[in-house]
């Protein structure tokens, strides 16, 4: 079901935890949908010098969080904002169709954390897309 890359990031997630004096914190998703990602950023001179996450969710959710943190660490804020769900999926060697929403969530978590950072630092923020709750589109039923 999952690629080796996904399983590696799931079993050995990078950057788990929190940053006590974070410059930006973002949380997306909700427990109803079964996915919550929380991302902590430490930003110095517009560069993301540290990033941690906590995720409640499936294997793909944990793996996408983990790889997203790796992908934005050391990047400028602008570069981090360019992270797309597509690049997250590619970096993981693919995700099952039903799990693609997780990569979107990862992208959104990064955006949310950066927005928080900007808000705290007086920047203006554009409207961001966020998962508005369970639309039911991303998966279907459970059976055996």
């Amino acid at each position, binding site marked *: 079901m999952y690629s080796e890359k996904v399983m590696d990031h799931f079993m050995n997630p990078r950057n*788990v935890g929190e940053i006590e004096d974070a410059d930006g914190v973002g949380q997306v998703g909700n427990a109803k*949908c079964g996915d919550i990602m929380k991302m902590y950023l430490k930003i110095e001179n517009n560069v993301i010098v540290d990033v941690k996450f906590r995720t409640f969710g499936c294997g793909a959710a944990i793996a996408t969080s983990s790889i997203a943190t790796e992908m934005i660490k050391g990047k400028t804020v602008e570069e981090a904002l360019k992270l797309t769900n597509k690049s997250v999926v590619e970096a993981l060697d693919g995700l099952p169709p*039903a799990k693609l929403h997780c990569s979107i969530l990862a992208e959104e978590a990064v955006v949310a954390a950066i927005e928080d950072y900007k808000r705290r630092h007086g920047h203006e923020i554009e409207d961001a897309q966020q998962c508005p709750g369970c639309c039911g589109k991303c998966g279907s039923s459970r059976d055996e």
Partner: protein
Amino acid sequence: MNKNIIYVDHAATTYVKPEVFEEMRPYFTDLFGNPSSIYSLGRESKKAIENARSQIAYCLGVHPTEIYFTGSGTEADNWAIKGAAYANRKKGKHLITSSIEHHAVLHCFQFLEKEGFEVTYLPVNEEGLINPDDLAKAIRPDTTLISIMFANNEIGTIQPIKELAAIAKEKGVIFHTDAVQAMGNIDIKAKDLNIDLLSMSAHKFYGPKGVGALYIRKGVRIDNFVHGGAQERNKRAGTENVAGVVGMAAALKLAYENLEEYNRHLRKLSDRFINSVMERIPYVRLNGNREKRLPGNVNLSFRFVEGESLLLMLDMKGIQASSGSACTSGSLDPSHVLLAIGLSHEIAHGSLRISFGERNTEEEVDYIVDNLVEIVGKLRQMSPLYEDFIKKGGQ
């Protein structure tokens, strides 16, 4: 043990027991005749099917002519529900079921709703039990069918079928029960229980996949579902899965012969497992009723933890279990059963179903618990919900 597989998902499916497989084997390559053929090879297949039918009927305490073979438990459910609803639609279009049925039942009712039937979904209490009074109250003059599962596939709760069927009988309403999970675990005598229609599926009791049966009490009005040839006394068309039917009967016979011992074995494992988890892991809830449950079923909700990641980590340890129901792949909707017994979405997402089988051992139970302790701990450390909970002082 460590790197071996520990299979604890017998509610999802079972292996075919070797002795069952041996009984099936000749019917693939050698005794392959079509049971409808009149020459010797055909008659042998016919005999095999009729023996299987008698064996199953004997277990259920019914007459062989009341057993019909199908291609799955799901097909048996579809046939029972749609067949009875349509056959009696002149009498009325109101149907009753429960809110915790398997999708094989629920989706039939949803289909029938679109076709103009009206369906009452009975609620269950926090242990998944239906209140017989609720059923009595729900019955109307135009009610034609009641379908209540014998035992639930997720939380294992066993319904008071005898009481429920008695109410149906008194009101003259057809009573169907999806006994897919119960068969092989419970000594069901359909006639004594006043059951009109009963579905089963072989792969839940160490028989093969792709074969099921429907018990239709003599006299019950039910339309055909699969139309075609004259097989199954003109009621269910399609060349019979001879090997499958032989396997189903052999498996059920074994199950009935060993019912008590099997129950004792499973109950011992579940009790050990439940007690041990409760002792060692905090914030856990046992779903379902502690006594009125399938002996091998354990359904737990671990707060702050999501089910799929729990399953995957268990899988990495060789432990093969389920989260509520087998196919969570791609599912974002938590189980309708767990929601129906009152769990919040969040907690429902963190559920784990362990269903023990004949080969499981106490050592395996201990191994699973050890790993659960570790994995739940790890996932909670990773969980923003747990972080919140702790920050808020752990209430």
